[in-house]
């Protein structure tokens, strides 16, 4: 039942995802690995700036960079994404279930046209 070991560094993960450029980098990496140079190109920002973003993503466990080779291509780490998915899925499932039930209650208590004043 205890799943805490499957919840690594979630705070770092959410911080990493808070930035639009970093989210765009992840979207790019979802299509395959890329070097800093390749990543910098579409964003019109400097390679050092991209490198800083990559460090944040790396610390959050979302990407890894190859150790060998001067270009050090980056790629997505699937488990980092899945850890976020798990928690958000739980929240979403609970809320969807609650609100579907609320829909039914609203349908009963407030008819489509003029809702009768309750109590």
């Amino acid at each position, binding site marked *: *039942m*205890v*799943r*805490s070991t499957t*919840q690594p*560094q*979630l*705070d770092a993960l*959410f*911080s990493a*995802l*808070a930035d639009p450029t970093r*989210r*765009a980098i*992840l*979207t790019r990496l*979802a299509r395959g690995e890329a070097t800093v140079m390749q990543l910098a190109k579409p964003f019109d920002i400097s390679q050092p700036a991209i490198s800083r973003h990559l460090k944040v993503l790396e610390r959050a466990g979302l990407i890894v960079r190859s150790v060998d080779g001067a270009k050090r291509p980056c790629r997505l780490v699937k488990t980092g*994404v899945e850890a*976020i*998915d*798990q*928690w*958000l*899925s*739980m*929240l*979403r*499932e*609970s*809320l*969807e*279930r*609650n*609100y579907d*039930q*609320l*829909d*039914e*209650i*609203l*349908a009963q*208590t*407030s008819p*489509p046209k003029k*809702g009768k004043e*309750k109590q």
Partner: protein
Amino acid sequence: MTKLTLQIEGERYVVVTRRFAASPEAVYRAHTDPTVVQKWCTGPEGWTMPVCINDAQPGGKIRYEWADGEGNGFYLTGEFIELEPFQRIVHVERMHLPDPTPDNHIETRFAPDGDGTLMTMRMTLPDEKTRSMMLSTGMEHGMEASYVRLESMMIC
């Protein structure tokens, strides 16, 4: 198809939106009447809310108790901070699992949207420890089928 959106905002917030086919007044009332809250806010499949205290006035207490019918349960306490009838509710809540989690500060807005209501709920992201505890209460039951796609988080 689904009417619910769930997005990360900044570093510390989760924003949920949901559309309802009823007036803001009706949706607001459904959030502030304990006999109604008890019917819909039951959480995971198979769970119920046997105790629902919801004193919708500034400083008013909130206490929700959930049970799965098999001896498992947890509860939530909180206080209302601000209420603007039919438009906005601000409250804090914490879960007791059984130790209390850090306060979750929640703002819920109800806005007219065509002939219905767009509800926007902005909540504090629980810390890692809290999330782990939530995942270990059994609240994850039945969650395997559904996955939030990373792409959907990237629109925000």
